[in-house]
């Protein structure tokens, strides 16, 4: 029998990017919040500059819940299962994957909120590609702008504005939606290599700019500036320059005295009563079962975990899983096409051994609807990004561009000469939800507790393939303009477990096709909310985290302002 704990106003399941942000406006409004986190606190001394541990071994210093629940994958419902990776793309700790993420903190483009109506308006209804289940968001960019702004200030985002209330600044992204004000900090510094790439972009008539990062470019809110030491990709920050929620919003919420953080809490189900209202959550900690009653439950895990927790939470009122009486939980799932990259070989050392993935230069000319698609056979596009970041194992594992074998003396001579002469671009491309892509529970594979893991049934479809081809060609053009002597395109792969997953509990006004309403609260369970990218219906061409955080703040703000209605 579970130990029943004292009731709280709000229980938040997961203190990562989204839950870790939501606790701040909730507690500042005076609501009592219990944050249940599967992981534990980690300290700067846990973030050693260790390529093996960070990039190959799945963070053994953290609680290993995620690595025991890696989703399974199959490209289609009739395809055999793909090989299952041993390491989950995300990790468990207070702060979640914001501890080791790249911290690129983009706002979505206004087009991303209106893909359907804008495509119809500009190109005609026939240009919505077949089989895709994309909808307009229930609101536009302007509605989310104030929340982007709040998050940027709280976690500390550095960057160069390109559009402040309609005034265009060519040092920034001229295509971005209007911002109320500049970033709280100037952008991260350039490097010799990124300056070289920026010059090449200008020679093509493009407008390169430094990207936004939740990494301090100087001292900010009592945290140090970035030290550019080269272990930021899947690495924690030993000087707390990265604006993880573990060092920003969560400790600030704790100072209100309204937040209780419970670590190593493994949530198993959300409980509901006979009337279909959420009553709290069940969790395991140290082998003991607890029940945390709450007026409002906010599920704030990663996409796979949010969907899985709802599907595992069956009850007489919700026999197919919580909030799933319309069969929409797990639907409209998609993941960013971050593959289909381009690598380039240069005739000189790039001195790119240090830096971070967020220290780079972007080109947005070919993203979203920033260019005319009239003569093209796809919608959307991609953001082109190159950056300074290199570690020795990965450097030695470089492509040989067809110029040397993979091992032996010739290979050794090649990597000795070229280990610092290559770069791989990061190309984030529009991906849309498709009727054949979804998440559900795996009928066979279980976690060590005996609960089914999440199963991904998804693959890239026609629009993603066409975008990838187009964007790779643009990237080849950019690398060649910078003097690359060889380029190489990598394949698209398939939609396996990833850091950029979206959907599964999509947000929208229509309960027939969406799990949560425009405020992030369930259409079916009025005191259940969902935070994170699982509510997002489009990806745009950029990293999801800042948008997931802005949405989480917006949901929390709505809850605080309408508490009596929400809590019933």
């Amino acid at each position, binding site marked *: 029998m579970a130990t029943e704990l004292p009731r709280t106003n709000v229980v938040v399941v997961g203190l990562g990017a989204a839950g870790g942000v939501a606790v701040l406006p909730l507690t500042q409004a005076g609501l009592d919040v219990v944050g249940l986190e599967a992981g534990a606190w980690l300290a700067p*001394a*846990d973030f*050693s*500059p*260790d390529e*093996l*541990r960070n990039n*190959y*071994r*799945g963070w*053994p*210093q953290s609680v*290993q819940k995620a690595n025991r629940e890696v989703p399974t994958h199959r490209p289609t419902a009739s395809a055999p299962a793909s090989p299952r990776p*041993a390491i989950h793309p995300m990790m468990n700790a207070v702060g979640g994957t914001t501890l080791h*993420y*790249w911290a690129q903190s983009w706002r979505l483009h206004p087009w991303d909120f209106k893909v359907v109506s804008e495509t119809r308006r500009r190109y005609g209804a026939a240009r919505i590609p077949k089989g895709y289940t994309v909808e307009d968001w229930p609101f536009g960019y302007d509605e989310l702008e104030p929340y982007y702004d709040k998050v940027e200030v709280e976690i500390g985002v550095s960057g160069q504005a390109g559009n402040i209330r309609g005034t265009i600044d060519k040092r920034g992204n001229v295509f971005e939606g209007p911002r109320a004000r500049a970033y709280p900090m100037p952008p991260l510094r350039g490097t*010799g*290599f990124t300056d070289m790439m920026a010059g090449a972009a200008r020679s093509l008539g493009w407008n390169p700019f430094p990207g936004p990062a939740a990494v301090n470019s100087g001292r900010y809110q009592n945290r140090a500036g970035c*030290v*550019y*030491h*080269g272990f930021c*990709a899947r690495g924690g920050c*030993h000087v707390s320059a990265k604006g993880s929620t573990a060092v920003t919003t969560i400790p600030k919420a704790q100072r209100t005295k309204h937040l209780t953080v419970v670590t190593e809490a493994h949530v198993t189900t959300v409980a509901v009563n006979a009337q279909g209202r959420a009553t709290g959550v069940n969790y395991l900690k140290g082998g003991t079962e607890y029940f945390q009653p709450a007026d409002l439950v906010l599920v704030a895990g990663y996409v796979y975990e949010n969907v899985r927790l709802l599907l595992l939470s069956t009850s007489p009122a919700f026999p197919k899983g919580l909030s799933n009486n319309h069969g929409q939980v797990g639907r409209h799932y998609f993941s960013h096409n*971050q*593959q289909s990259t381009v*690598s380039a*070989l240069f*005739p*000189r*050392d*790039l*001195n790119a*051994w*240090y*830096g971070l*993935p967020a220290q780079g230069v972007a080109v947005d000319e070919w993203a979203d609807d920033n260019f005319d698609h009239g003569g093209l056979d796809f919608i959307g596009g991609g953001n082109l990004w190159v950056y*300074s970041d290199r570690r*020795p*194992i990965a*450097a*030695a594992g*470089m*492509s040989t561009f067809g*110029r040397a074998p993979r*091992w032996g003396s010739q290979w*050794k*001579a*090649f990597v*000795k*000469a070229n*280990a*610092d002469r290559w770069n*791989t671009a990061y190309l984030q491309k529009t991906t849309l939800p498709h009727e054949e892509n979804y998440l559900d529970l795996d009928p066979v594979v279980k976690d060590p507790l005996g609960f089914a893991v999440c199963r991904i049934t998804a693959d890239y479809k026609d629009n993603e393939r066409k975008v990838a081809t187009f964007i790779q060609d643009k990237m080849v053009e950019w690398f060649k303009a910078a003097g690359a*002597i*060889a380029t190489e395109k*990598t394949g698209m*792969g398939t939609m396996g477990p*990833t*850091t950029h997953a979206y959907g599964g509990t999509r947000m929208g006004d229509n309960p027939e096709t969406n799990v949560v309403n425009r405020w992030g609260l369930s259409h079916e369970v009025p005191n259940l909310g969902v935070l994170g990218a699982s509510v997002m219906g489009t990806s745009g061409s950029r990293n999801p985290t800042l948008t997931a955080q802005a949405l989480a703040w917006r949901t929390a703000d709505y809850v605080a302002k309408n508490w009596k209605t929400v809590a019933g």
Partner: protein
Amino acid sequence: MDYISRRDLLKRAGAASAVAAVPAVLTEAAQAPAAPPPRTEPLETLSAPEAEMLEAIAARLIPTDANGPGAREARAAHYIDRALGGALAGSREAYRSGLAGLDAHARATKGRGFAQLSEADQDQLLAALEQNAVPGFAAPGSAVFFNLVLNHTLQGTFGDPYYGGNHGFVGWDLVGYPGVRLAVTPDEQRLGQRPRQLHMSAYDYSMFSGRRPARADATPEEDTAPHGARHGD
């Protein structure tokens, strides 16, 4: 174009060529391959014949040659032996059956065990292993084992010396990695600059020396996906 300090001196003296995709061979480094260093650590997981064979394989994947020390001097096999008792324990059986399968093929086709063959014969067998041409391996074939050993040999040659490989920082010197630093200046990121070579493990820094990862920590098998497949975050 290259990285170790004597090459810097050559470059400044104008003795090194300008940019090229494949380097000129250094004359002063053109010497006979060194004899294998005596094993300084006892085996932790592999049997002595397995370790001998793995060292022979690693030494062909990253040979000791005119470009300097290779996997043998880095003690990559020692790294793998140790990791197979901890973080890479999930691969222990693959090594047992893979090494046995390759050795059996060596005896059947060359009349001797793999470790006793000439370098040319070893290279021929490794190429066959890479091309799925060694019989007796489960589908999709022997290339899976080849890729496993190659990835682990790269880790053992270029990973942090704390884990038992990259002995004497020979791997980092080979690719010109300037070393683990806790802070990097703007100048150290400019073209044409060459940050001073540091020979420090992450765990040589006092901030991290108290939080060394357990060597036998049972963590998941690492992802050995090929170049590019794990790109992005």
